């Protein structure tokens, strides 16, 4: 069955403007009578809730955190893209659109991506007006830097804490709407299910995490802004509580899950150091602006380093293999994330890795320190500076640019990255897949919207750096608040909903029974141990490289794991108080089911594209080999239950404005 | 006046009162010390007694002295109120391990201003009883300089400082004052919002010197009188 993305007609550049100008509106007096439920308060959720509140809708906003400001958007480091062309380096809306489509390996919807590029400019303006302290030049104007996969400088940043500052901006706007009474905020409330009435999403069941109380919340529509599902891998750069439950519950109610196998493995993370590890820490991609990635050329040297007999500084330059610079001269260390990650994996698979585990490569700032040191000496009028002076000056420049990242690295590893190259290894970071949405960001369930990382929309098979913040805020500030009107304009006669209906009752009962189910297993293994095992399966067979055989195996293993989970999990504590273990239990149960769907999706897609690399489909040089003839579609999966195979719905992708080319960063 | 009462009852307003009264008392200490140093003049107390006469008879100084008494009372009462409110804010359950660090101020002084202030208040009560009240009640012997009869406060002071117990009490109290000032001096400026990257180090420097020199000056007097003038 084929899906309709509801892309409006007209030329690419005019679609959004025209559509926006002709869209149905909801009059202010009617907005006051319409209730919108927003789940999640990250960049997308907070910006959407705030904007909808400003527009006059009655908004109920939910987060499982103790405060909206804790959402994991806060951890984004590097920056946010916008086609401002402030640097006069040839950037434009079209170029941002093109880079994003190409970076996504031609698996995203042209019209959505173009709209994203268009509104990117408004986001910067909005953020500045909210007081986001973006980096500035001496003249007082906004500064930019460049990111992987592009050749212009269009990334706006606030030191290494861009996500934090943007989220605080959105959080503050949301707080203002809360104080004005336009948004009713529910902290420490987790969405447990979507409630459907006559085929439309009309509310949610939420659990108060402090008291365990289940609550019914009705509304005219439901917006999910609940983030990605990277934690299906257990170890990822996601926060510990990031989960798929809201999206997965929607999937179980009939929403389609699109491209779940498209996961992004970020190339620059701090490598795992032991089995006790609970999460991985990202080192911003911006570091690749100045850091050079290398491994020793010889296995002997690599082995010596792994065994601690040599250090990076013992390897002369000629014996270092700067594999990104050598293999991809055009982009060098700034190739897109999927390419950089795979190259690191190849190097480590070849035995050239550098940590005791053999799973790490170097990110070296020595050349940058020298280059900056010389230029700083020059600008200070110091002629013939000695090496120590150059290093000192250079380190100061590097510290100004990346100081907080270097500090974080040192805190975690105990090594000084100014003196010794950083060790990095790829880690799961972002999920391009998510709930299928049309051009209006509405899922196939009427009245159920999905925004931000929660949906699948704009990044195709690989997301470019600094684009997640852009998409989250684009959806929340500038897209959803308009497109939601397309649905709500038909609802102005619908009275406020009563949550005492049979549908709400049934949904609440189902949630209650499900939670009791977890408590009553009374087995012997902790929730965490199941999560860890699921993560290992996913990383091993559905991680940076996949193949049919492994995926088949993974599917069987996941099925067994699920069975064991429901037989032997142990959840301590009670249901009616604060019980993080119970929260984890239902989240992990959902991860297990989603994990299987990811494997099914990866098996279906017999090609390599972006973050999805099937070992059977590669060029002679080992690069990803796309199959445009057969796979230029979005895989939207209808979940039909644990014992049956999911049903695939395809949304064919048509490219009218760009030519499908093999991505080359050489 | 609602803005004013709102201000006075706000947390910052209360602190500003502490700051302003504190600064006034700091200024007073200098004048008080200059006067007291007259005690060290080897003239059998004449310059001190004349100074005391001047202080108690000049109408301007008399007015200022009422301001001073008010400041002391306001500073003390407000201080105790803050102390009690802050204890309440801290809550019933205290930390099992206490480990207060500070930046650019003495953490012992900073976290014990209430205790230090209370000790100073007790000192002041005794101090006032001993000298000021005696003088006011007219229990003071008289002495005549150039035909003017003035109260011989010097003799009272000299009497007191011949008692080693009093001397120790005074000196210890001055150590307490020093600690109180060590934090209070710079804190008063911070509360008024007078913090500047360039000038705050200067304020802190002056504060440090002040909080050592002034109490030292006061402490020297009884010591000198006890050891040298008997």
């Amino acid at each position, binding site marked *: 069955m084929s899906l309709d993305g509801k892309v409006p007609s007209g030329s690419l550049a005019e679609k959004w403007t025209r559509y926006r100008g002709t869209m149905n509106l909801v009059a202010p007096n009617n907005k006051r009578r319409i209730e919108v439920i927003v789940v999640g308060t990250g960049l997308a959720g907070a910006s959407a809730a705030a904007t909808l509140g400003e527009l006059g809708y009655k908004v109920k906003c939910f987060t499982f955190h103790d405060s909206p400001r804790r959402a994991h958007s806060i951890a984004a480091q590097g920056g946010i893209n916008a086609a401002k062309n402030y640097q006069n380096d040839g950037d434009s809306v079209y170029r941002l659109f093109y880079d994003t489509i190409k970076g996504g390996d031609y698996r995203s919807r042209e019209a959505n991506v173009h709209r994203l590029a268009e509104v990117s400019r408004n986001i910067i303006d909005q953020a*500045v007006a909210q007081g986001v302290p973006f980096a500035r030049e001496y003249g007082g104007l906004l500064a930019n830097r460049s990111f992987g996969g592009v050749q212009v400088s269009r990334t706006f940043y606030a030191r290494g804490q861009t996500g934090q500052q943007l989220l605080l901006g959105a959080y503050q706007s949301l707080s203002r709407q809360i104080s004005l009474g336009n948004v009713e905020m529910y902290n420490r409330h987790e969405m447990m299910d979507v409630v459907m009435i006559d085929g439309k999403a009309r509310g949610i069941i939420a659990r108060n995490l402090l008291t365990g109380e289940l609550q019914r919340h009705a509304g005219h529509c439901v917006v999910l802004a609940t983030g990605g599902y990277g934690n299906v891998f257990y170890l990822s750069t996601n926060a510990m509580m990031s989960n798929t439950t809201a999206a997965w519950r929607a999937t179980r109610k009939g929403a389609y899950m699109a491209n779940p196998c498209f996961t992004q493995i970020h190339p620059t993370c701090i490598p795992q150091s032991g089995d006790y590890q609970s999460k991985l820490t990202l080192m911003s991609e911006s570091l690749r602006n100045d850091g050079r990635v290398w491994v020793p050329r010889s296995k002997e040297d690599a082995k010596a380093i792994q065994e601690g007999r040599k250090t990076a500084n013992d390897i002369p330059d000629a014996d270092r293999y700067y594999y990104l610079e050598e293999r991809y001269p055009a982009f060098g260390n700034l190739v897109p994330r999927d390419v950089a990650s795979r190259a690191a994996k190849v190097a480590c698979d070849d035995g050239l890795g550098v940590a005791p585990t053999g799973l790490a490569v170097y990110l070296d700032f020595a050349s940058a320190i020298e280059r900056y040191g010389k230029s700083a000496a020059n600008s200070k009028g110091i002629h013939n500076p000695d090496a120590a002076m150059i290093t000192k000056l250079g380190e100061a420049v590097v510290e100004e640019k990346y100081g907080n990242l270097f500090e974080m690295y040192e805190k975690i590893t105990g090594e000084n990255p100014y003196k010794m190259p950083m060790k990095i290894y790829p880690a799961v970071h972002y999920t391009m897949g998510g709930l299928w949405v049309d051009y209006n960001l509405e899922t196939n369930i009427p009245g159920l919207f999905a925004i931000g990382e929660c949906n699948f929309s704009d990044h195709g098979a690989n997301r470019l750096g600094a684009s997640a913040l852009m998409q989250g805020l684009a959806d929340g500030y500038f897209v959803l608040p308009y497109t939601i009107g397309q649905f709500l304009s038909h609802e102005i006669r619908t009275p406020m909903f009563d949550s005492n209906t049979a549908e709400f009752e049934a949904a609440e009962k189902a949630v209650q029974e499900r939670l009791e189910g977890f408590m009553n297993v009374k087995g012997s293994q902790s929730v965490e141990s199941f999560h860890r095992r699921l993560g290992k399966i996913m990383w091993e067979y559905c991680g940076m490289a996949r193949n049919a055989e492994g995926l088949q195996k993974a599917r069987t293993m996941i099925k067994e794991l699920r069975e064991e989970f429901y037989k032997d999990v142990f959840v301590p504590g009670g249901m009616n*108080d604060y019980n993080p273990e119970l929260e984890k239990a239902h989240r992990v149960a959902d991860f297990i089911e989603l994990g299987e769907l990811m494997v099914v999706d990866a098996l279906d897609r017999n090609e390599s594209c972006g973050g999805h690399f099937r070992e059977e489909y590669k060029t002679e040089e080992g690069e990803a080999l796309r199959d445009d003839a057969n796979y230029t579609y979005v895989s939207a999966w209808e979940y039909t239950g644990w014992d049956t195979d999911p049903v695939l719905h395809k949304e064919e992708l048509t490219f009218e404005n760009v030519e499908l080319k093999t991505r080359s960063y050489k | 006046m609602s803005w004013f009462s709102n201000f006075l009852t706000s947390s910052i307003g209360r*602190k500003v009162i502490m700051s302003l009264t504190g600064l006034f008392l700091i200024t007073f200490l200098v004048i008080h010390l200059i006067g007291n140093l007259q005690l060290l003049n080897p003239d059998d107390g004449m310059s001190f007694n004349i100074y005391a006469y001047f202080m108690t008879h000049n109408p301007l100084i008399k007015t200022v002295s009422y301001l001073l008494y008010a400041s002391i009372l306001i500073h003390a009462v407000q201080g105790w109120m803050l102390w009690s409110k802050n204890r309440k804010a801290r809550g019933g359950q205290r930390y099992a391990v206490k480990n207060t660090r500070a930046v650019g101020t003495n953490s012992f002084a900073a976290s014990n201003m209430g205790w230090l202030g209370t000790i100073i208040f007790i000192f002041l009560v005794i101090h006032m009883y001993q000298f000021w009240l005696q003088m006011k009640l007219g229990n003071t012997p008289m002495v005549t300089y150039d035909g003017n009869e003035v109260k011989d406060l010097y003799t009272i002071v000299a009497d007191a400082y011949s008692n080693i117990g009093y001397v120790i009490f005074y000196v210890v109290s001055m150590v307490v004052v020093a600690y109180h000032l060590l934090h209070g001096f710079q804190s008063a400026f911070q509360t008024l919002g007078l*913090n500047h990257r360039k000038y705050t180090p200067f304020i802190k420097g002056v504060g440090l010197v002040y909080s050592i020199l002034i109490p030292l000056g006061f402490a020297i007097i009884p010591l000198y009188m006890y050891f040298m003038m008997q």
Partner: protein
Amino acid sequence: MKLTLKIWRQKSPKDKGRFETYQVEANPHMSFLEMLDVLNEELISKKEEPVAFEHDCREGICGTCGLVIDGQPHGPSQGTTTCQLHMRHYKDGDTIVIEPYRGSAFPVFKDLAVDRSAFDRIIQAGGYISVNTGQAQDGNAIPIEKEQSARAFDAAACIGCGACVAACPNASAMLFVSAKASHLALLPQGEVESKRRAQAMVKQMDLEGFGMCSNVTACEAECPKEISVENIARLNREFLSSTLGTEVKVG
């Protein structure tokens, strides 16, 4: 490494609470929270209730974690959140006392977890710039001096963890409040409503039952983002000038 942990256990807000002693086997590369994870896994395997503590990003930015470790919020390392503290700072045989934040405005609801929603209410009172989506002019329309912007950023780096309140002998929230007020007041776009903001935020802060700042500076000493008390002076200044100047209405 073998460690002895003395951890505050409290079943509910009403429970009196007490210290319990545990032994745990840790590894120097672990983070502090991973060490607690190990303890919790052990407790679960013994069918006991794990220690409740809050955490999320584990990279020092979300502000969810915050334990008082041997009397110091976020433990002994300067400028470090609890989640970024690593066990290499301890040695075999150490005893570590772990307590929740203490303060009337931060009530404990279970073990080491406290309610910090007072901070949200302070931001709601005025910790924002009143601009609706779509009202903004071009981002480069107002040049902002680099240094000024950097100062605003220093204040904006606050993660809202509440360590300042926990560290303060008076349980004052002035560093948190002043960091937000300073961040916004230092930028031209936020300066417009800085007077009203100062009044509104301070009013809410006082209502929440935080203590009053006596410039102890323990907040700055323990702040994982090393936010300076000069922000407190700036808020004092804003508050004073808005009090003495034209009357500002605070809802």
